[in-house]
């Protein structure tokens, strides 16, 4: 369906799609099988100018928005959600800097990220802080002209591969919501090491691992914005990044839908292609409706967020919640349509189903998304004048 994209947006879509088909498709199964980080593919995306889509031109980016970024992520995810995760996580890791960093900090880091020279990563999750972000225990103590960080981050995407890490740590445990701050930690900073990489169900080529801070000393100017802004920056980051996860889900689901339709047209049972059976047709129809609905929602929300609107939390959560739940169902149905073949690793859909699950979990679980939407509805209706 035509979403009336601009010429530039169509270029981005075509380009991302071409790279996904030429460079990702031939290696996606192997990357998954061997759990190999897709460094080569990311280099291609960087060479194509696709890393800095929503970074301002002043820092070497294309000066576009989250919508354009979503278009690119969708096309990559259509071929491999693992590669899309590695690609999109760099965006996530740079949002705190983009939203809260000083001009000097943005110049220093965003140019490297926009060019694809440096990958970024977002460090929030800890063993005591998943859905409850306030449960973080990593401490950042001001010592002279430095901060010293101690603690461990868990399950961080691009751990070890990124050069630039946006890390949230407690600067004042007594201040509650104002007790945390974001810092830029660089690979190579003294006292900063990486733990083991996790073995995952899906998105296996994405590097997921621990960030270990052991008296990690960084200059005081590495604080992003001011002390105490940590949780606020985190929330604002997620408002921006959620449509991107939605786009990843839409792309993944689209890839699964295409595999299912193509298979159903070829597979002959009882004398004709199985797409002739209503049972199969209805499944495919439902899948197609869901994918299109997800796409329409993501596009609408991404555009809305780019417009600079202030109150985006509710719709941003919707743009993550619906497509990710949808992708889990669509990929599972795709395996079903392919039947026995769908279960075999020789065919791409079992990987898509394995990849889909994490989308319902990371960047806030589907339960948290529902919390957010429910709370926003409450606030929204509370503000309305009674008739």
């Amino acid at each position, binding site marked *: 369906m035509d979403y009336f994209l601009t*010429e*530039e947006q169509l*270029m*981005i879509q*075509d*380009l991302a799609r*071409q*790279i996904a088909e*030429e*460079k990702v498709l031939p290696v996606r199964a192997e990357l998954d099988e061997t759990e190999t980080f897709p460094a080569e593919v990311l280099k*291609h995306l960087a*060479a*194509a*100018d*696709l890393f800095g889509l929503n970074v301002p031109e002043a820092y070497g980016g*294309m000066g576009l928005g989250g919508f354009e970024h979503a278009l690119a992520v969708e096309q990559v995810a259509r071929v491999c959600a693992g590669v899309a995760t590695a690609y999109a996580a760099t965006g996530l890791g740079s949002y705190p800097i983009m939203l809260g960093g000083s001009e000097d900090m943005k110049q220093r880091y965003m140019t490297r990220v926009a060019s694809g020279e440096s990958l970024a990563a977002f460090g929030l999750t800890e063993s005591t802080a998943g859905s409850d972000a306030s449960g973080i225990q990593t401490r950042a103590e001001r010592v002279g002209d430095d901060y010293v960080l101690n603690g461990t981050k868990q399950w961080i995407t691009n751990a070890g591969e990124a050069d630039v890490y946006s890390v949230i740590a407690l600067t004042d445990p007594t201040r509650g919501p104002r007790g945390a701050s974001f810092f830029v930690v660089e690979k190579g900073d003294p006292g900063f090491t990486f733990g083991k990489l996790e073995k995952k169900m899906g998105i296996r080529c994405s590097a997921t691992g621990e960030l270990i801070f052991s008296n990690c000393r960084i200059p005081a100017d590495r604080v992003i914005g001011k002390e105490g802004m940590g949780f606020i920056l985190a929330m604002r980051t997620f408002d921006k990044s959620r449509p991107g996860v939605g786009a990843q889900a839409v792309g993944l689901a689209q890839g699964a839908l295409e595999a299912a339709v193509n298979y159903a047209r070829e597979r002959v049972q009882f004398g004709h292609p199985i797409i002739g059976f209503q049972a199969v047709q209805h499944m495919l129809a439902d899948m197609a409706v869901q994918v299109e609905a997800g796409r329409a929602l993501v596009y609408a929300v991404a555009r809305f967020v780019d417009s600079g609107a202030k109150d985006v939390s509710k719709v941003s959560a919707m743009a993550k919640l619906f497509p990710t739940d949808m992708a889990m169902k669509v990929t599972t149905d795709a395996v079903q349509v392919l039947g026995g073949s769908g279960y075999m690793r020789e065919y791409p859909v079992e990987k898509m189903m394995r990849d889909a699950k994490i989308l319902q979990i990371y960047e806030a679980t589907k339960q948290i998304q529902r919390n957010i939407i429910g709370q926003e509805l409450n606030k929204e209706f509370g503000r309305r004048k009674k008739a």
Partner: protein
Amino acid sequence: MDVIVCIKQVPDTRHVRLDPETNTLKREGVESMVNPFDMYAIETALRLKDEFGGTVTALTMGPPQAEAALRQVVEYGVDRVALLSDRAFAGADTWATGYTLAKGVEKLGAFDLIVCGKQAVDGDTAQVGPGLAERLGLPFVAFVRRLVQVDPQSRSMTVERLMDDGYDVVETPLPALITVVKEIGEIRVPSLKGKMKAKKIEVPVYGAAELGADPDSLGLAGSPTRVVEVFAPKPRGNRVRLEGSPEEQADRLIEALRGDKLIAN
């Protein structure tokens, strides 16, 4: 280093359909693409630009729609393009094509190297590259699979030429003309900035008059050869069908090849 790449727009052979009555390719509604070997030539030129700087120019002879092929290669980083197009060029065989391209190269000015793809996937003659080199009086190396050493200062280059049973190492002075094979390396991806440039770039079109070309050397008039018929040859000779499992068929095949002394014992 200033490099010229000759490209050709060809039917997209990945989606061919045959007209069942005439047994020829259906051309209407078939998409076009840049000849795949020419993309390797473009990649070769771009790698030289990456290393030594300079400009890469893409040149093509074709109908007006060949402009799309030129714009496509600009997406990859080509700096300048030129389209040789004129009714008088139509029907050219490889001889007349070589003449026309040579006039085009003259129009473009100085260069250090011309790179062509090994052959076009629609004609498959592999004649235009060497023919062009001959007309321009350039040293020529075919089937280049690797640029071993390039020295723009001392005006020389060493390359590997892929042969059926190995490869040759060939040294040539510059300027020269080479044709390349796909072993030369992985083709890069286009870029967003490249796509934007491709949209806006001006494509100069040179006809017979602008090239100062001799009309008798152009197109059908300038072609000593004619394509009389294109057909798929009917299979001839004895055909033996090997039965059994793949392993059994393999054994039988080896036996048969040994029997015919086509492989050693």
